[in-house]
């Protein structure tokens, strides 16, 4: 005999159950720890793994390796001062603007000095450069210099002889207060010139092939939310004139960099003025009409890249000059595009280089320094990025280190670039050998798995496709291959499947006919019978619960438990082609809240509030009819989960239809059940339902408050305990 009084009272058992419950919940909430990082370069190379409901930065093999840093001393020159722009021409000559020293420095491809230009001859006069910010060289050797502080663009040759000078055009389109400070410049192969002027949110100033002004090109727009619409209405109709005058205008962000590809598409980079604000759609590919045509193509959708974050999602705190910590977001200020069409974005805050293909697939991220970079390949204030198309080298200008850093592709980097270019071009089979080799460098390459799955699909190796597509989380390719695998299976096994189906149906018919003939009841238990009656005859079933007390709370609880299990089953085992949750971070605790929590809350609040409004039903009856109404949801969860593993998304209408029908049935059962047990009319039921939902929200708020307070209390107790124990 157990003498423990706690046990005797049953409290002990409850305590154990409570501890177990807390333990289970804690284990569900506990986030697994990650292993430590191993890295050998001064900076990390990583990429983002994207899966349904998941985006995680993971270390990856280096695609780029540091090659060298070029300073003024390396060229036998005085120190560079705030260098700002760099350009590599077809002959491999490297041009960059040493802005603070008002000169253009030209290097040979071996990084030796070729020439310094600080003055240019033009029609018998000498033009002295004044803080030039950008340089661009055309295929015929014309050097376009954004002579910023002189508010002009000079077109000169290698000998320092100018052929033309572009000033601010005299045109009505240009606002009178427009300040022309050319900071970036590109020229397409047709001779069109695009100039970004400092702080201009009108877009690029465009000159045609005869160097005549032809308008502004491709401005950013201000994004709007519903709140913005209300604000705008308020401004238009309620604000006084003086308030209008004093109100700060919301202006679009201006372009911070511009580039042109071999097909004359113009690309831009956009960054907010404040460094603690994040934005999306930082990189744009503009059509001749100035519209962003860049698409974010995932494995299942094609969306505009306007909402795609090309930088890191996370921000970071880092020390400022005063010793405090500022919040900084990752934002892209400079970009370039190479002959493959890969876009290179440069984050000035973290010193990261992001590489994307034309479908916004990320190839890699490298670099770093977090504005403190003192090591090779890290940065303090990187401001410009350029790619040499021939050597694939990446050049980055740092305005605080006053240097140019050169990265060269690693063997792995070259492989991935080749392979992904072939994959995006649809040449999957040709890309296969590169992807296979790339995997030996990094088996964690999502792009490789996706590329290989598509290659296998083309080669009609469907089982292999499924394997690779699952590894790369490529639901689209998986679905394509699955159709073939399933059809093959059905074709091979049609005969016995047909026989089994006919046998099953026959057996069922025989069973029901037999039961009817013998006048035997399938379900003898009245409670169970009532439960199923609630499904097929909701009114009759509810009345039996209300007036004949035939409902069973135990049975209702069994239904609720089954509902929870079905929900978890559905979330875990839902077909790969449809699944949108990250299984590695999934926790059944949330399902527990969504099932048990909501049903119990609904029951309690329902009973509590309906009692005040002449509701006749008691809590038990509310609980029973609510739980019985979940039967269609259990059926739906099981059926749709099974079907999601059999049907491809194109056939997903069947799954949707089952879900909708079951949901409607649940709604009807709940409606009829509650109306019946409380003896409400329909409109009163609707009104009460709204009130109950509001009541539930209040309860959730109170529970959360209590939870937060308890959490703080425990934290305080923990802190006090630690303080006392450590001292």
């Amino acid at each position, binding site marked *: 005999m157990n003498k423990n009084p706690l046990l005797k009272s049953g409290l002990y058992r409850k305590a154990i159950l409570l501890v177990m419950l807390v333990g*289970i919940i804690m*284990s569900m909430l506990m986030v*697994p*720890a*990650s*292993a*430590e*990082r*191993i890295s*050998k*370069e*001064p900076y*990390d*190379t990583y990429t983002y*793994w994207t899966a349904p409901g998941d985006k*995680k930065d*993971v270390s990856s093999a280096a695609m780029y*390796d*540091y090659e060298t*840093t070029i*300073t*003024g001393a390396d060229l036998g020159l*005085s*120190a560079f001062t705030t260098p700002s722009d760099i350009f590599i021409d077809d002959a491999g000559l490297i041009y960059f603007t040493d802005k603070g020293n008002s000169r253009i420095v030209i290097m040979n491809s071996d990084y030796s000095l070729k020439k310094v230009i600080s003055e240019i001859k033009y029609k018998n006069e000498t033009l002295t450069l004044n803080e030039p910010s950008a340089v661009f060289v055309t295929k015929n050797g014309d050097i376009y210099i954004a002579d910023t502080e002189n508010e002009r663009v000079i077109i000169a040759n290698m000998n320092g002889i100018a052929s033309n000078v572009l000033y601010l055009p005299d045109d009505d389109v240009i606002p009178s207060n427009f300040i022309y400070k050319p900071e970036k410049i590109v020229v397409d192969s047709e001779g069109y010139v695009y100039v970004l002027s400092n702080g201009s949110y009108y877009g690029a100033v465009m000159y045609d092939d005869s160097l005549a002004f032809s308008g502004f090109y491709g401005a950013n727009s201000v994004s709007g939310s519903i709140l913005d619409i209300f604000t705008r209405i308020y401004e238009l109709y309620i604000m006084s004139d003086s308030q209008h005058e004093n109100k700060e205008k919301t202006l679009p962000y201006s372009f911070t960099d511009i580039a042109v590809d071999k097909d004359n598409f113009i690309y831009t980079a956009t960054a907010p003025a404040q460094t603690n604000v994040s934005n999306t759609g930082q990189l744009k590919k503009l059509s001749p009409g100035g519209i962003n045509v860049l698409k974010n193509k995932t494995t299942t959708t094609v969306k505009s890249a306007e909402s795609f974050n090309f930088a890191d999602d*996370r921000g*970071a*705190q*880092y020390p400022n000059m005063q*010793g*405090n*910590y500022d919040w900084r977001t990752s934002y892209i200020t400079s970009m370039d595009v190479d002959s493959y069409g890969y876009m290179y974005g440069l984050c000035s805050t*973290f010193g*990261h280089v992001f590489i994307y293909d034309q479908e916004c697939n990320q190839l890699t*991220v490298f670099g*770093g320094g977090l504005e403190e970079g*003192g*090591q*090779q390949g*890290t940065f303090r204030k990187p401001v410009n990025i350029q790619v040499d198309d021939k050597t694939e080298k990446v050049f980055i200008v740092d305005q605080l*280190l006053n240097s140019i850093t050169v990265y060269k592709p*690693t*063997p*792995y980097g070259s492989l991935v670039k080749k392979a992904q270019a072939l994959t995006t071009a649809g040449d999957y089979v040709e890309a296969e050998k590169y992807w296979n080799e790339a*995997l*030996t*460098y990094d*088996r*964690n390459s999502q792009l490789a798995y996706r590329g290989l799955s598509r290659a296998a699909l083309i080669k009609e190796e469907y089982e292999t496709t499924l394997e690779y597509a*699952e590894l790369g989380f490529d639901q689209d390719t998986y679905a394509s291959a699955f159709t073939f695998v399933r059809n093959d299976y059905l074709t091979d096994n049609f005969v016995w499947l047909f026989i089994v189906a006919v046998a099953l149906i026959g057996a069922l018919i025989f069973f029901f006919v037999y039961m009817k003939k013998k006048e035997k009841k399938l379900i003898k238990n009245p409670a169970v019978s009532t439960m199923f009656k609630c499904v097929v005859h909701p009114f009759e079933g509810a009345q039996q619960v209300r007036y004949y007390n035939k409902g069973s709370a135990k049975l209702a609880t069994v239904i609720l438990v089954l509902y929870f299990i079905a929900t*978890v089953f559905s979330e875990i085992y839902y077909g790969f082609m449809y699944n949108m949750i990250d*299984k*590695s971070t*999934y926790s059944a605790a949330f*399902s527990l809240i969504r099932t048990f929590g909501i049903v119990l809350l609904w029951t309690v609040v329902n009973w509590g509030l309906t009692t005040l409004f002449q509701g006749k039903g008691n809590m038990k009856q509310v609980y029973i009819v609510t739980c019985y109404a979940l039967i269609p949801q259990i059926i739906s969860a099981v059926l749709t989960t099974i079907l999601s593993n059999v049907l491809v998304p194109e056939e997903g209408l069947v799954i949707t239809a089952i879900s909708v029908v079951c949901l409607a049935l649940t709604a009807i059962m709940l409606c009829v059940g509650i109306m019946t047990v409380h003896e409400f009319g329909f409109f009163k039921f609707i009104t009460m339902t709204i009130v109950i939902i509001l009541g539930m929200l209040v309860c959730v708020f109170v529970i959360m408050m209590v939870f937060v307070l308890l959490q703080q209390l425990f934290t305080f107790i923990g802190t*006090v305990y*630690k*303080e006392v*124990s*450590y*001292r």
Partner: protein
Amino acid sequence: MTADFGGLRMKHLIKIIALISALCLVLSMLGGCSSVKVEHKNYSDVVDVNNVENLENGVVAESDYFKMIWHQTTTGSDGMEYPRAAIEFVSKKDGSVWSTIPKDYYDSTDPAGIFGNALINSSLVITMRNGEQTFAYNAYENAIANGRFSSVKSADKNGITVTYYFDNIGVVVSVDYYLEDDGFKVGIDPKNINSYVAELEDFNTEVHGANLADAVQKVVSVTPAPFICSAQNTTANDKSSYLVLPSGSGALMYIDKRSDAIAREFGDYQTKPDNALGLVYGEDYTVDKYNDPDNDTPITMPFYGIKRGNNALCAIIEQSAEACKITATAGDPQLGVDMFAETPSNGYSYIAATYNVLGYNKVYNKGTWRLQYNDYVDQNITPLVIGYYPLSGDQANYVGMAKRYQKHLVDKENLKKTQDNNLLNIKLYGSFLQDELFLGIPYSKELPLTTYSQATEILGELKKISGGSLTATMQGFGDDGIDGNELAGGYSLTGVVGNKTDLKEFIEYTKTSGIKTFFNFDTVRFYESGNGYSINNDTSININGVPAPFYNFLASTRQRHDHTKGGKVGALISRELLAEATGDAVALADELGITGIAFDTLGNICYSDYDDIDDEGKTIYKYPWRNNMGKDVKAITADVQKNSKTVLMDGAFSYAAVAADIISNIPTVSNKNNCFDLEVPLYQIVFQGYRANSTSAINTAANKRTQFLKSIETGSGLSFELINNYYQELRKQNMRGLHAALYADNVKLIEEYVNESKAFLTSVAGATITNHQYITKDVTKTVFDNGVTVYVNYGDTDYKSDIGTVKAQGFLNK
């Protein structure tokens, strides 16, 4: 119903209990916050400001190798006597002069020159704390120029002791300069660094706007003889003179004055004591940090030096290296320049060691960070000793310096030669934790990366490839595998890679086949309590009196990967328990019949512990500023070796390399600072031929071929990291190496590289490096003491050497 307790009503009793509890709580917390009281003495009570004694100018000590000359004063060209407190060491061997003030600068008798630059005139620099800030004070401006120094002959050493009186801040520091062995030495006993309450009128309140008068201990660090390793800058692109720094494998900084007139600086001892860059043996992990902008490669050996034309000076920090920081400035065009002189000099370059005496922590709170220093209670910190060894002729270069340090290790640390060097060195990973679901409830499941039977197969194949010269390190074979949360993998081996019989068979196989096998234990870091080691009570303590957290950092933002971001926070085992924790690992090895033990952190994490240990009734800090870490690790390793165990140290600092039998993952790169001009293999020159060694893994490097050639350049063994099974779930692991480690992907590469290098690496096994040089920026030449020479070409074009054509990305040996 109301209970009554002797007249007290229940509610009153509760109130009283609550009040007493609260009072106890507050008192205990206040008690915890209080520091050990130290007597504050007034400066004038201790120092007689009007009575200091000094030696006359002239030779004050002499040995077979040196003359030590003391210059109390200098006569200026205006006939005035100027206090200098300079010490000159003249080599009897080659006549070279090494002085606390650069000789050429000292010889200038122009008073303007003498006063031209206070820093270069200083034979001592100290940094002081002032609340949360620190300031540097040079001895010339604050003591010497005012005649506030004394000098006496040492009683027990062949030299003198100079005491510097910083009257205005109430600090007195004594420095010993003496001759010993074949070098001269500078030593500071921390007992001779004293600060008092300054009472003088010109107290520095006006300068820094704060009152230092009530500070307890103000000296944060001291830099003795900062310019003894210095030289006037050379002309641009002159590569004949340089500073030598053992950052990672090693690096050089040329001291030429360049066209951009920018000084290249490494570390900062004057204004940024919290900057870990330059710390010998890397950062101190008991110091908190919020973010980690770069991946740093630490300084691995306690020596540095300068090559000055045909002469060189090698400085070896012979004692208290753990507390030192090496800082260097190259090509500073302003340093030592008298702008009014007719021919101003080019400026000076120097390299020096700073001795930290006060522990600190960086505390982040509500958007600001503060520097906090430890209270100056008694601390058992060992004195600083730096030995300086002039080199000349063929030895006056970085190779000579590395060889001089090697000699120091041979003479003083009993480093002995070895004939062993394993051609192929394999690290096999055991298992990892994967997140699984059971009915929607997440749990961790361990998955095998390499089982014992797979390891047997792999090693069998690799033995054939390598011809038997094979070493294997088994990492992540403890509980939780590579995710090991408890100390030393919970002091048990995981069962997921095989049972005890499998293990026994594996061990038996490696023994019979002659494969040196090591099981890896991390006896320093841990994340969870277990096996008698508590994460709360058995950890190293930072200066705030709480366990020092050990963070990993996020790849993308380089911020702490702490609990709030899904990471985990660990701790370091208390320094007092380090030996015991390691001993427990040895006991486990004994139990399992393991004879080879590898340590992946013992040899490369050097940390402090500010636990105020009660030592015979007196509370002291026993391990401030990583005190005696090297000595402790050597003693611990010796104990392990006594137990018939062979010890492998991963990424070993020099003290651990000396203690170990085999060293792996040795650095092949420097910290890659922008101020470095050339990477040199100092580490390899020191240890090749003395320790069997291998470089970091080839297959996980950014450029496999380059990493392979790094091994060839210095005759180090080839290294690979391998697993047999790859899982998709490994993507959650941030260990990049795992994703390139699949055996099936690498076996051909291993075979190819082994076949290419077997003959050469076998020929230099046990040979020491006698010379190393860059022939071009891409081609190196290494000469071994057995006459073997190897050229390595990292470039993309062939190179014609005196022994034949060295192919691009290839090597050639004779």
